[in-house]
């Protein structure tokens, strides 16, 4: 397991905390999956913030604040600074959204914000695309983790661009990478781990399932299976059949 800014996570599953039917169901999802990281946000105080913070603290997991909903580098930087004070962590899931329909990262705003935040000592988890040039720029800016998307946030489509993700993984073999967003099924998470990604981050697929705690557990098992499979060095695919039973010694009948 690779380190994320010096932290080795016991479990490669990171879970969001939004959209659950109740706080109790969210707690069950964390308990039953053993997820190691919880993403959280900052919103205008309307009376529920204090109770929510108590629930998150009781989960006993690492907290990864996000800058969700920010559409400019300036907004994201201000939100990150507020989040650092609030959650007492240098970790920040940096989202700078470039398009309202696809919630696609704005690569220019993302890079600008990442440069500012890493200079200020933040440990940035940039929500990015599979673009290799952007990945290199983010690394040059001081990011030591990348979070490429699987598919648009909340779409549940899985790994939308396998080729691009495979190329990204191969281009930066030493960089810890989290597949963030777009996963809908445990098989998607297993596939990401089989490809050599280091963790997955998801929210909707678990929170909106009929039984979120069971789905969280299913994702945890899939992540574990994918991780084991990657470490076991999977065979490569081939187009033609190759008999697995020995041909030599077959009877003449």
């Amino acid at each position, binding site marked *: 397991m690779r380190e994320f800014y010096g932290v080795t996570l016991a479990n490669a599953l990171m879970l*969001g*905390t*939004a*959209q*659950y039917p109740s706080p109790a169901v969210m707690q069950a999802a964390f308990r039953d999956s053993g997820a190691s990281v919880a*993403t*959280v*946000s*900052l*919103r*205008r*105080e*309307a009376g*529920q*913030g*204090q109770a*929510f*913070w108590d629930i*998150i603290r009781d989960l006993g997991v690492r907290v990864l*604040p*996000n800058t*969700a909903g920010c559409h400019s580098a*300036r907004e994201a930087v*201000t939100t990150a*600074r*507020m*989040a650092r*004070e*609030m*959650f007492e962590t240098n970790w920040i899931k940096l989202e700078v959204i470039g398009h309202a329909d696809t919630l696609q990262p704005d690569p220019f705003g993302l890079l600008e914000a990442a440069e500012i935040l890493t200079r200020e000592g933040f440990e940035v988890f940039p929500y990015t695309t599979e673009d290799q040039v952007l990945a290199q720029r983010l690394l040059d800016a001081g990011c030591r983790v990348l979070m490429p998307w699987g598919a648009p*946030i909340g779409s549940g489509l899985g790994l939308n661009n396998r080729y691009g993700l495979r190329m990204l993984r191969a281009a930066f073999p030493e960089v810890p990478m989290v597949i963030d967003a777009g996963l809908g099924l445990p098989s998607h998470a297993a596939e990401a781990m089989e490809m050599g990604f280091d963790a997955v981050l*998801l*929210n*909707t697929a678990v929170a909106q399932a009929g039984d979120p705690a069971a789905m969280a557990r299913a994702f945890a098992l899939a992540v574990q299976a994918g991780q084991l499979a990657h470490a076991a060095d999977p065979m490569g695919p081939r187009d033609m059949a190759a008999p697995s039973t020995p041909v030599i010694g077959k009877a003449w009948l």
Partner: protein
Amino acid sequence: MRIDVNGESRELAAATVAEALDELGWTGARVATALNGDFLPASARAVQTLREGDRLEVLAPMQGG
């Protein structure tokens, strides 16, 4: 004076951000603040004075993905 608090115009007697938080009922609350779009650390709230028309954002921990 009129201050914009989380997008709502409020009439406040407070002279500083710390006093404004007290006046708004957020004494001791776990909140993060921004004034006119810039982060305002908790340590600066007591000395940061308010001016007519300032935009104050008071944020709390919330669910996120």
